């Protein structure tokens, strides 16, 4: 009769996806922000393709970080506001299971979506097709890690009225290594050097974060629920 962990996780991911697709405006907001910010750069800079190409990895990564942050605030807040978070917390499932499922669903609709549109942005910024694989791999690892870091911040700030500013202040400093290694990997791929080292660092950060962050986020959320 009891509902297993995987079953519960799939159910929560399904719930989150349902909710996201019912509100397409919120779903598209980070993507549109990402596309607009990255297309503003070629317009604002002079028409030197070499300059644009040199800046492309940094621009791409900063835009990806900021647009991921946009939606992090709502990760637990909308459920906390309407009282459904308490229902989830009392569902008889471990809160960690709920946190993991919600964070993964959040990454699917923000991070994974950013990764999918990144070739379009990459083309606009003059990144050659040969570097797309590295760019997408680094963005996948980076946005996934960021979602976990964000879950800790979102858990801590869920009870605050204007938590989103504090959330950025908590998450952005922690995201520095992602920016450095992510942009570094893309930059190396652009200049024809092997990006493996930087990608390994990103992967290590990703494993480290998704091993520990669920517990930290759960603890943060439990404190906020009180």
């Amino acid at each position, binding site marked *: 009769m*009891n509902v297993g962990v995987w079953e519960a996780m799939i*159910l929560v991911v399904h719930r989150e996806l349902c*909710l996201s697709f019912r509100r397409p405006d919120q779903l598209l907001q980070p993507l549109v922000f990402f596309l607009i910010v990255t297309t503003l750069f070629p317009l604002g800079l002079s028409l030197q393709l070499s300059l644009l190409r040199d800046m492309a990895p940094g621009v791409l990564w900063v835009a990806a970080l900021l647009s991921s942050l946009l939606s992090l605030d709502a990760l637990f807040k909308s459920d906390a506001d309407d009282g459904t978070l308490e*229902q*989830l917390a009392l569902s008889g499932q471990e809160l960690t299971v709920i946190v993991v499922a919600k964070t993964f669903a959040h990454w699917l609709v923000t991070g994974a979506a950013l990764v999918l549109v990144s070739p379009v942005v990459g083309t606009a910024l003059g990144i050659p097709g040969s570097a797309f694989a590295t760019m997408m791999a680094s963005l996948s690892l980076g946005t996934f890690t960021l979602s976990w870091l964000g879950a800790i911040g979102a858990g801590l700030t869920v009870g605050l009225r204007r938590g989103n500013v504090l959330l950025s202040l908590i998450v952005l400093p922690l995201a520095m290594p992602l920016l450095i290694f992510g942009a570094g990997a893309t930059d190396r791929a652009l200049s024809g050097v092997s990006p493996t080292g930087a990608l390994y660092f990103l992967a290590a950060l990703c494993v480290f974060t998704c091993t520990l962050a669920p517990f930290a986020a759960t603890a943060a959320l439990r404190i906020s629920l009180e």
Partner: protein
Amino acid sequence: MNTAADGLVVEKVHVWRGDRHVLKGVSLTLQRGQLVHVSGPNGTGKTTLLRVVCGILRPEQGLVSWLGKSIASVRTEYQAALAYASHEPALKADLTALENLHFAVRLKRRVTAEELRASLEQTGVAACAGLPARVLSAGQRRRVAMARVLAMRASLWLLDEPFTNLDSAGTDLLRNLLQSHVERGGSALVVAHHDLKLDCNVHRLELTA
């Protein structure tokens, strides 16, 4: 000395909110087939007591136990046995009434859509099953929340102001549901301002400031 090993026991619970001493040594026991009606003026900690009992809020002092064990040590079993309805209906505005029920109840137990529809029918909102919660009236939302409690098939009901927004028919319906739940051997802790007017085993706990 409490010997209620088959029920819920709250022993001398103290909760502070900042400088405010909200719960000052509240104790209660709730056996099977019993209902405890918590009342008292606003701000005396009725909701706080309910949140302590369901385990969301940890008391600074005192103990809440279920079947003789502290609720923290049997958290999943305890949560599986309880159904909590907060003073807000806790529905997602963008999901339909049926989906709201599905995602909440399915985490607790395997349930079919027919069972969920049946509980919506029991609370008189079967016609709203396919409507998003956004378009429901406050009373209908309350009835959907009550349908969720029914569908969970829990033995312990923890209800916070369940009569809010209900019309007289809804109030009668809820009284009947509470009565039959208690008569079947279930237990309930109900926070409500007015008299419950039930013919079953009701104990009253009055909280004071």
